[in-house]
């Protein structure tokens, strides 16, 4: 596995840690600040989803993981 792929694995493990206790309960589990009316406890989870999506998209575009195949025709 190359270094960038390994870094990505670490990132995703950390993102899982961010979603559970004690990190989520300390940082995310609160009502304020509200974003577009939504409570922060939900916004926090959605931000992690968005961040992971961006990382996955980057890995895909840069062909970091399992990159030896051509694009689909």
């Amino acid at each position, binding site marked *: 596995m190359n270094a960038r792929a390994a870094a990505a694995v670490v990132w*995703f493990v950390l993102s*899982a840690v961010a979603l559970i206790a004690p990190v989520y309960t300390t940082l995310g589990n609160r009502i304020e600040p509200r974003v577009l009316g939504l409570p922060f406890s*939900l916004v926090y989870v959605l931000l992690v989803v968005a961040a992971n999506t961006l990382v996955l998209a980057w890995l895909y575009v840069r062909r970091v993981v399992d990159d030896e195949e051509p*694009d689909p025709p």
Partner: protein
Amino acid sequence: MSGALPTAVVFGYLALTLLLGVLAGRVGRGDVTDYVAGERAFGPVVMYFVMGATIFSAYALLGTPQRVVEKGSDAFYIIAYGAVGFVPVFFFGARVRRIGARFGFVTQAEMIGARFESRLVTGLMGAATVVAFIPYLVIQFKGAGVVMHAVTGWPPIVGAAVAYAVVVTYVVMGGVRGVAWTNVLQGAAMLVVVWWLGLWIPEQLFGGVGPMFDRVVAERPDALVLPGPGPTSPAQYSAEVLVSVLGFTMWPQVFMKCFTARSARLVQLSAVLYPTFLFFLVPLLFLGYAALLAGGPHDDSVLLWIVARPELGDTTLLVGIVAFAVLAASMSTGDALLHAGASIAVRDVLVGALRLRLSDGVQTAVMRWLVVGIAVFVLAIFEAAGRTSIVDLLLLAYAVPIQFLPLTLAALYWPRANRVGAVLGLGTGLATCVLLFVVKRAAPDLYTVLNPADIQIGVIGGLVHTVALVLGSLARPRQSPEHLSRFAP
């Protein structure tokens, strides 16, 4: 609640699904690779909806708002685990797609068994999968029965039978392509209906999503943070998230869809796009909070309850549309389970483990009969299975995919893993789960002594599995380099 309009919506949808599924059956060669893996030719749109719609079951639609009413922000766990749960597909999916095409694999257990040169591993995985699917299918049938009852007034078992007669027809005739094409329709329908309702109902009842949450903050702030009204302790919540993450991509009906993609890179693309499906749970949370403020019921009827509020005006059409969305969710998961269950029973148990010499044509014929057989069996236990026992059985069912995680990771990434490790790991892992499950039912006191923290039995089984897998593998020599090189990426 029954009326002509909702009935027309629901039956129109059923007719359209049937047509689409039957048309799908007219494409392709009709052999095993076609019936189970769609000739490995699915494109991006179909892959996207197959992955998303298979995972989002009737339980996601009916259960998410219910969970908000019952437990408040504990319901966010379903988004939290989805944020990470599908990521492993991005890492192993391309490799699985390539190895599958190289050897002609169409199921997960075939691939793992071949890697470890063990028929026993294939057979055990296949049998455990079919057992795990049964309670999962019962839940889907129940969801279909509930909404068919709301629309037609028929007893739930009759409604479920009608909806699943449609599913069985298109799975028998169309195979995985029938499942996939209907999933595109079902997935798109779910997304549109759920977003529209999730924004429109808070608008009508409270003047918008923001004002609705203003009221929740004022009246029920406890429902916006843990521990919530449940209450859910931080440890419980974290366990829910982690356990779901571990098992998520190991459900065989999801895993084996890696074999259906047109290319390895396309499997990765579906993992990148998957979170857009997660956002579809957000409006269901909104509907849950709307029901919480409006004093809705705490059971799985809450979604149908909130769309039938008299303040919304004439709601007969709304009920039909919700019924349609729930049916779509139930059927898009149920079809994959029936299809995968029948495919796995034939490929992994009959052909893989028992070495029955069945021709390609006979295999697909048996799969088709098994789709009918499994559906009839689930209907037969539909009434007999009381609510509690199904929830209990689901506990065992969810433990099964977690047992496949160490094995799959070792098969793909640990060359040192060998047959002895795999057999020992899977055997002890599954045995631990079944034993703990039986002890919990038969001798609750003993269970409390054995598992004082009440850790999910799948996790304990998974730990036992991992230790046995590592020790067993290290005790025996590695497999031949020639064999391993064929499983290299």
